[in-house]
């Protein structure tokens, strides 16, 4: 075979990114929701700056988790509704890699903006620069895990109308370890004496693990859904 390695994956990535950026793609919805969640919390908690700074990383992480869940239900459903999924199943490309590519595009369009927005929103929560950096870094390595785990839920609920809520119920328990280690790594910047490297390493491991299990499980679910 003289073809370059995986040119089809690049084509798919480019198309997915285009689709999410154009009208109706919904790439901006997640980051707007993130903004809304994080900005209302200081109003609810009142003007206790120390409290805000202490729970800031947790708020950012929970906001990122909810914002990620928001856009996930369309990950495969949009393709199923117009028949694209059928053709992808018979395209002769490994479905696991197709799913991984779609997740990568989805993360670039919806997850990465959350990471970029996190330092700005950190200001709202009275985070110190070090804590801001820690949260941003943990979100950078942790949000791919959320997308990849969420893909399993998206694949399982692909044939359901209004599967978004069921998706959240399925995905949230699986996302809890990511949340725990993400927040505890970020907290290391706030509380003197707490370790950073151990929870951060586990967070990285969770993302890597999700990059294997997510596409395999989603592909399996999608193959059954075409019936």
């Amino acid at each position, binding site marked *: 075979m003289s073809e370059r390695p995986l040119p089809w994956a690049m084509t798919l990535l480019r198309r997915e990114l285009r689709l999410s950026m154009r*009208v109706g793609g919904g790439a901006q919805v997640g980051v707007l929701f993130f903004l809304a969640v994080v900005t209302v919390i200081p109003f609810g908690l009142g003007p206790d700056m120390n409290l805000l700074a202490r729970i800031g990383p947790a708020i950012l992480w929970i906001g990122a988790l909810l914002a990620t869940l928001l856009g996930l239900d369309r990950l495969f459903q949009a393709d199923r509704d117009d028949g694209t999924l*059928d053709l992808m*199943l018979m395209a002769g490309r490994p479905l696991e890699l197709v799913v991984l590519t779609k997740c990568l595009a989805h993360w670039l369009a919806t997850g990465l903006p959350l990471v970029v927005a996190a330092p700005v929103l950190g200001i709202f929560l009275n985070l110190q620069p070090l804590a801001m950096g820690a949260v941003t870094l943990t979100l950078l390595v942790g949000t791919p895990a959320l997308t990849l785990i969420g893909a399993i839920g998206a694949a399982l609920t692909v044939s359901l109308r209004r599967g978004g809520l069921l998706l959240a119920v399925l995905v949230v328990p699986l996302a809890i370890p990511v949340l725990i280690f993400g927040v505890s790594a970020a907290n290391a910047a706030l509380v003197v004496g707490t370790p950073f490297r151990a929870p951060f390493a586990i967070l990285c491991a969770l993302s890597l693990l999700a990059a294997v299990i997510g596409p395999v499980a989603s592909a399996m679910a999608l193959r059954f859904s075409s019936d």
Partner: protein
Amino acid sequence: MLKLLAENIAIDRGGRRVFSGLSFDLDAGHALIVTGQNGIGKSSLLRTLAGLVPPTEGTLRLQGGETERSPAEHAHYFGHQSAVKPALTALENLEFWRDFLQPARPQAFSGFPVATDAALEMLGIGHTARLPAAYLSAGQTRRLALARLFVCPRPIWLMDEPTSALDTASEALLLTLMQDHLTHGGMILTATHTPLALRPSRTLHLEAADPADMPSADGEPDSLEEIYG
């Protein structure tokens, strides 16, 4: 020599046996026209051949195809859904399928890839290439979906009601193109209610084996299945 063999195929949909014991074979350059009333399982048969619905019993083989690839990966599925993204232009839609689908060109099949511009031109929608597909009419969207079959050569065409939403002129054009595909050594399996003058072709008429399983005359539950199945 390319040959599609189906032996004793049985399909269940939603816990109901659609049909069983269906056997047929199809040589390269031949068309198989599947007829039968609504709900009899024409779409299910095509979806099974496309690898989207696993058969409950029986086997499906392709002789003379590329090894290590399933019959479905030698096939184009042209169904009720167009797989066209309204946010992308007609050309972007088509270019994606050209690069994403893996072409299948076994020896007996002499089909060749058509350039995307030429394919759109051939189907009479060349002037819409730069338009977002959202602005295309139903018939134009259908023709855009059809263009996919030409930019990525594959020998088997599975066509479910290929003439729906097409006007008389496009129907005649489609027929010519389908006939060309047969001449190049491709094969076509189509479910249709309108007679298609393809040569050489055979007709496979699906009938309910058990009169009790016959779809009801008003066709209501079964026509629903046609739409959603």
